[in-house]
């Protein structure tokens, strides 16, 4: 149960109790684990200083930091259009949106820090290519309509995933998600509004909207992750109430929501197998290309390299700035001390 980073509050506490207690650690942790699960089952929130199984902590660190990385990398594809947004209103909305994503990243890194990992360490993992982020951001945004499609589909899919996380068993994550989901739903509406304008616009604009839907539809469905049968982490996360619905359930819900929205726009979903199943009250969709999903995940997507390079460049070129801020703060502190002496 001990962790290398030396920040495990539980085992640190045991250290101070002496060796007799350590002997009972395995037995004790079994009891702790039962108590933990009872609390989770009773829908109590687990807080940073509470005992938690090491695997629960690690799962949360992985999931929340991946989420944070996704927000930060996700600033890039849409940020690509800030300087070219086609009206000043759209530019304003887009900057505010990309800024929100940065805010979500900062917020989520803080939530991860409550689990004993620093933001610097997590960002280091991202830049070294060791940490994952949502593969969707490895697709390019060649047109303005891609900004609309991301808001509508990608943020729409994110909301499906994230609303249940507001009830996640881990308190800091659940609370962060309440705010994040409010902003995401605003983004989703803005994205849909862009698509609405385009699909009611000129022939070229309509075409732009359709092409963007064609590009983002399947990757959006992939955002929910592998199907339940293939998903490694699902069952345990459900028991821990980190996850509330299966990948396939959420994906189906997304499709059911989104197909009528596409119809309202007069756009065609790029799936010849898509049909309404009246009996089940669902839209049935075609087979997802999981090979593409795997390839993008492994780093072979269209923009994996560019996205990481952009993050690394920002980090490297910003180093002297961060160093200067630290040096200035140290000098200030020294001046204050010498004045006080």
């Amino acid at each position, binding site marked *: 149960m001990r962790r290398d980073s030396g920040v495990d509050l539980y085992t640190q506490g045991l250290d101070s109790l002496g060796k007799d207690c350590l002997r009972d650690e395995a037995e004790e942790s079994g009891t702790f684990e039962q108590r933990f699960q009872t609390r989770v089952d009773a829908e109590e929130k687990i807080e940073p200083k509470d005992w938690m199984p090491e695997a629960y902590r690690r799962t949360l660190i992985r999931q929340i930091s991946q989420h944070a990385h996704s927000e930060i990398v996700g600033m890039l594809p849409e940020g690509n259009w800030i300087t070219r947004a086609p009206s000043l209103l759209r530019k304003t909305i887009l900057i505010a949106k990309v*800024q929100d994503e940065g*805010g979500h990243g900062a917020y989520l*890194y803080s939530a991860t820090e409550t689990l004993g990992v620093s933001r610097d360490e997590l960002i280091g993992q991202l830049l070294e290519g060791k940490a994952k982020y949502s593969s969707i951001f490895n697709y390019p945004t060649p047109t303005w309509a891609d900004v609309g499609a991301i808001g509508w589909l990608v943020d729409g899919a994110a909301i499906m995933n994230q609303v249940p996380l507001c009830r996640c068993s881990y308190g800091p994550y659940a609370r962060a998600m309440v705010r994040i989901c409010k902003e995401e739903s605003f983004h989703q509406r803005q994205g849909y509004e862009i698509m609405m304008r385009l699909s009611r616009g000129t022939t070229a604009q309509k075409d732009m909207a359709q092409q963007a839907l064609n590009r983002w539809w399947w990757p959006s469905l992939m955002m929910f992750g592998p199907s339940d049968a293939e998903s490694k982490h699902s069952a345990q996360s459900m028991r821990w109430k980190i996850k509330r619905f299966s990948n396939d359930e959420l994906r189906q819900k997304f499709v059911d929501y989104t197909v009528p929205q596409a119809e309202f726009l007069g756009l065609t979903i790029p799936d010849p197998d898509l049909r309404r199943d009246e009996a089940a009250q669902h839209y049935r969709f075609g087979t997802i290309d999981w090979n593409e999903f795997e390839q993008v995940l492994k780093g072979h997507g269209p923009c994996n390299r560019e996205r990481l390079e952009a993050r690394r460049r920002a980090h490297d070129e910003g180093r002297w700035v961060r160093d200067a801020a630290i040096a200035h703060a140290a000098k200030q502190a020294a001046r204050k001390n010498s004045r006080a002496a």
Partner: protein
Amino acid sequence: MMPHCAYVLRIADTSLILAQRLGEWVGHAPAIEEDLGLANVSLDLLGQARMLLSYAGELEGRGRSEDDLAYLREESEFLNATLVEQPNGDFGQTVVRQFLVDAWQLELYEQLLESKDPRLAEIAAKAVKETRYHLRYSAGWLVRLGDGTDESHARVQDALTRLWPLTGELFSTDEVDREIAQAGIGPAAEALLPGWSARVAAVFAEARLAAPVMSPFSWHGKQGRHSEHLGFVLAEMQSLHRAHPGATW
């Protein structure tokens, strides 16, 4: 163009082009907090630009909207100060540019609170609050960088040397400024110099930076004569809008 409209456009375009430049940073800043901070300043400036452009359109009386003015004017019709169209460079250069402009805008907006033009006074009342925050942000960073490490000091001192000659334009009064000042609409450009100099000098002292000597050449962006950079800024900013004439977004 009547001086009143030209005057409003000068202020509007300066905010717009600076907002555009800051927008280039979003997602690429040295830390997440700076992504958020630069985006905030960019959004405020964009907000100011939109109010001022709409007003300039009304003064012009040809039915042009904020977007018509932002997206469909040529380079020589833009009346922003040449300083704001300069490239971002490194974060230090962006901070120096921002600081010099923030200190100038604060003087300007404070004096515009007394404008006989109620619309301008109203816009200034909102902008002055935002600009105080911008100045706090840029001055804070200027001090951090100037005082921080040898490298950061050298970088911002170099940026200051590079950008300083472009500040002369901010305080050179021309025919438009004279008419505006006479009508009580706004201060003469030179009237902003004492307050600006005092603010700037105080922060330079704290940042251990030396103000370069003013060079004699003055730029004339506010008369539509720009550096080589504005053309590229506009080419990028206007490209999509111009590719679809008459479309709405």
